[in-house]
């Protein structure tokens, strides 16, 4: 047939490109009538490319298992063991840091979303930590309000500086504000030792809520309608 095509005699087909063996049966090909003038294959030769996603997935799952195990093991350690206090704090700190790092890597593409994850994870870890150390309510009194308030400020700054569109962040900003209102609940239930941090955080969030409602209330409703569409 065509001058530039090699031929597999066994299959009775012409082969495009520079194959030396038939891609179908593996038999040696008969050279084209004008060697050196082979018709190039219409399909490009793409070098092998290994996706890192599988490796990454394996690493993430292993890390999560280790972090989770670290947290669970703490339950077995009775609070009174002497000399373990510092060690245990370092251990918990490393596990928490690793968890936050994992989350940050995974959700790196949307900073507002990753902040929500951060607030929830860090808050829960601290409450758990507080519980392990015999519950003196430091987590609810200080950590959670400070975490919420500072995250809210951080998101507001980031959104402004990075010029993130309202639709992109509104749901997450809203979630942070709502999370920031929970210290008021703790305050009302009397779960905190010092009311000031919770009150400050609550006030800030109420203020932010008002601002959000005024500046982008309709965008927020549009976005929510979209995401909660049934």
């Amino acid at each position, binding site marked *: *047939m*065509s001058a530039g*095509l090699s031929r*597999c005699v066994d*299959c*009775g*087909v*012409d*082969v*495009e*490109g*520079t*194959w*030396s063996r*038939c*891609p*179908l*049966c593996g038999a040696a090909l008969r050279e084209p009538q004008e060697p050196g003038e082979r018709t*190039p*294959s*219409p*399909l*490009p*030769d*793409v*070098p*092998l*490319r*290994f*996706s890192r*996603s*599988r490796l990454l997935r394996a690493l993430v799952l292993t890390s999560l298992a280790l972090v989770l195990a670290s947290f669970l093991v703490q339950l077995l350690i009775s609070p009174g063991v002497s000399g373990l206090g510092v060690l245990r704090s370092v251990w918990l700190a490393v596990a928490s840091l690793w968890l936050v790092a994992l989350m940050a890597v995974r*959700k790196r*593409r*949307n900073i507002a979303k990753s902040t929500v994850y951060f607030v929830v994870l860090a808050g829960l870890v601290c409450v758990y930590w507080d519980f392990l150390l015999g519950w003196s309510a430091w987590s609810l009194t200080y950590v959670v309000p400070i975490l919420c308030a500072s995250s809210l400020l951080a998101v507001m700054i980031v959104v402004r500086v990075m010029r993130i*569109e*309202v*639709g992109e962040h509104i749901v997450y900003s809203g979630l942070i504000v709502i999370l920031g209102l929970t210290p008021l609940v703790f305050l009302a239930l009397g779960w905190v030792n010092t009311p000031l941090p919770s009150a400050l955080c609550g006030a800030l969030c109420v203020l932010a809520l008002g601002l959000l409602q005024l500046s982008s209330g309709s*965008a927020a409703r*549009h976005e929510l309608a*979209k*995401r*909660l*569409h*049934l």
Partner: protein
Amino acid sequence: MMRQHWVRLDNASNMFLAARSDVDPKVFRLGAEMDHEVDPALLHKALEKTYEKYPLYHAVLRRGVFWYYLQDSDLRPEVTAELTAPCAPIYQADRRTLLFRVMHHRRRISLEVFHALSDGTGALWFLTDLVTAYVRLRFPTERPTDPGADGATEAAGGSGAADASDGTGAMPGEDLDDLAAHEPVHDLTGDSFAHYFRRRRRPGSDAWQARAAFTQEAEAEDRVLSVGSRGADADPGPRDGTGSRDGTSPRDGTGSRDDTGDVAGADGSTEDSADAPRREPVGRRRLSLRRRVYRVRGTRTPDHRTRVVELTMPAAAVIALARAEGVALTMYLTAVFFEAVRRAAEHDALTLAATVPVNLRQFFPSTSARNFFATTRVEHAYRSGPNDLGAVARTLERDFRAKATAEALEGKLRRFLRFERHPALRIMPRPVKDVLLSGINRASNRGLSVAVSNLGRVVLPEPVSDHVGRLAFEVSAVRPQFCAISHAGRLTVTFTSPFVETDHVREFARILTGAGVEISVAAGRVTGQELAEAFEDREGDEPQEDAS
């Protein structure tokens, strides 16, 4: 701030998201081979022009709490050299990218599309417009002799709406499609599934009567066709309403009058979506039947890319073979495929099943470029009865014709939409839906050996078709599959598979060459060894060539 349009993902598309995997990213490709090396700069210009006409293709995919949705974006597409493996993943969660890509390699222009965005027919519209725009830029002196002439022949008998964006006024099927006719054609909206199958049947409704009449007509024509099947190069007149947007539109799968199996969905594994609700209650009998279905196994390609083997052959020769057996092309090729798989498996008493997507636009006129297809499943047990190629093809043809009717499909899709609209399912969060759907998908995969998809004969507008040789159509695959498309008298049957082995392709080619069909093979290299050979060659032959 402009509020971005958004639209919930239609039902077939949800399945693609649940079923996509490392091996099968649910991407399909349409390609056109030009008569010259493609000029990337002009192609880019052509792409920008075409992109304007397809708001749907501007969409990015986002995840809501309960559903996925498509949202308008202001991203711009880029033409790239073909540096990725065929049908490489396009959609990545959390990354807001366009859901298609346009590439060039030597003489080829390739369009790859994530299947949740569009189906084969929709993508073929896009490719046709792209290639048309490109040819106009590349050969500015050539003008269509009479822009109306094409349109006239093409639109004859068609019942779809005209392309509003082109402003070609004729709307032969206006009465059929009260809604779609007034919408911009390739808009983000326009879920044809919902349009046709969600509404309650209103007795006496004009649109419904019109549609029913159309269906009967289409079927009558089908019967005529099945009797007097024509060669691919015979009359290009359409049988259905899909392609008659305007003169420049391809016959998109419909042109092959000798072929009912117009495909829209390139992919076989989504049949599951449409089949699922029906299969669930039927249960045991089907299950026990399905358990016996042979499934092709093999060695996965090293980096999970799709193995592509393209067979190009003269369309007329194959159609003559099909006609000699008294069947249409798709089912003839399916029968050959079955026989090839059987020979490759070296096993006689197999039960083989194939999934075949059917373009719904031929029964339910729609100009939406979004997914609008349903799949049917055909099966043959090589245990009893005559097992020669012709007999198998005729059995499959009967089976397929019974399933690919407007009534059968409509019933199935109505059931599926009811299932989708079920309150319990609606309030199910999206990740749970994904798990459920991928379970259904896995279950129905167990009942399938291969997949088959035929876009039929494509007719490009006059000055364009002179510069285009064969077309290519392929889809990422979770099981061996072939996709067929023909243009300019050349039929391209592209086999894709997640496995390195090409035994079934070898047998397929040998059956056809044995019957006197001339075939040329183009295969993509997938293993380290194959690629090393290519790169050695290249270093020897063309040192200046870019190694990528």
